[in-house]
């Protein structure tokens, strides 16, 4: 059975290119354009990995992280944070929630091939 990836990303073009490539790579894809829809789909779709943007309408990625990783309990699927926020304050805030199986990649410094490689590694 195909593994499901949930993409929570509000930038339409990023969402499109991620969805197309990951479908070509043989994954089943679910998408959400904002944080509220994202949280709903985490529960409904039970993805193998969640791709999470940080700046999102309605509910931001930080709040989602803090909800899914309450008290740093590593339950639920691994989270790949894809963001362009690389400054210290934001990085610290993300690190406060993330657990070992999660990853952070800076979009503008990462190729699509590296995103795919990271996802595959997280699914092992």
């Amino acid at each position, binding site marked *: 059975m195909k593994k499901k990836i949930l993409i929570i990303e509000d*930038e339409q*073009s*990023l969402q499109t*290119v991620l969805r197309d490539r990951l479908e070509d790579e043989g994954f089943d894809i679910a998408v959400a354009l904002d944080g509220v829809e994202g949280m709903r789909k985490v529960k409904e779709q039970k993805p193998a990995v969640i791709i999470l943007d940080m700046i999102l309408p309605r509910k931001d990625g930080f709040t989602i992280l803090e909800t899914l990783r309450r008290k740093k309990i590593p339950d639920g699927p691994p989270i790949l944070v894809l963001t362009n926020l690389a*400054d*210290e304050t*934001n990085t610290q805030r993300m690190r406060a929630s993330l657990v070992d199986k999660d990853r952070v990649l800076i979009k*503008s*410094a990462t190729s699509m091939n590296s995103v795919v490689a990271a996802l595959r590694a997280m699914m092992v």
Partner: protein
Amino acid sequence: MIIKKKTASSKSRQDKLQSMFVSIVSHQLRTPLSAVKWLLEELIDNRRGEPVSDFQQRYLEQAYESNERMISLVDDLLNVARLDAGKMRNTILDCDLSSIVQSAIVEIKMFAHAHNVTLRCTFCNQGQVLVRCDGDNIRLVVQNLLSNAVKYSGGKSVVIIDVAQKGKRTIIGVHDQGIGIPMIERRRLFQPFFRASNAQASRAEGSGLGLYIAKKIATLNKGKLWIQSHKKGTSVFFELPAAVERKRRDLVI
């Protein structure tokens, strides 16, 4: 006293504005740039094997290159803003210089290949060279020095990266056979946005921020950066504190 208080609060407001600016720029500018990066990567890779003419392929590759230049310009501007505000993350640990240089070489291999320049590290395959620094920031500096060396090499040549030990300090050298730097302009090389006259005259693109950033990062890491240049070729030296328990036998002197 009141005036002092006011000044302090206006400074803190200014700092807040500056860090807000950095955060907004980093997100708002990089998001569309990364979308273009990924869309073009997928088009250039063309894994679906759809027909693309040579003309289209050439233009796609040029668009990708221009976008990469824009991303690195935004990165440079952000780094300058962070460094000037004293907000650059810099965690000093024992780091292996061999692997830092190796990964910097991997990053700019394609760029060097396009310029017909070979990168040769004299110590990378000979074990660890441990120094005290922030690995990510020093990688940024090494990448920048290598990219300058390639850019101003002016065609088929070799860039050599070597290392030497001087007491408790480790000195990395990046040596090119390029256009050199006019004597009279050397003192201004570390000023922001300054580019040497022969660099401007060459077709190589540059923001004039690389060496300014490199010098600031060197200082943050208790290091030094200096340049020697002749009519043909430039050597940039970068000194860092060696790690206390370094493996001396592994060092190439």
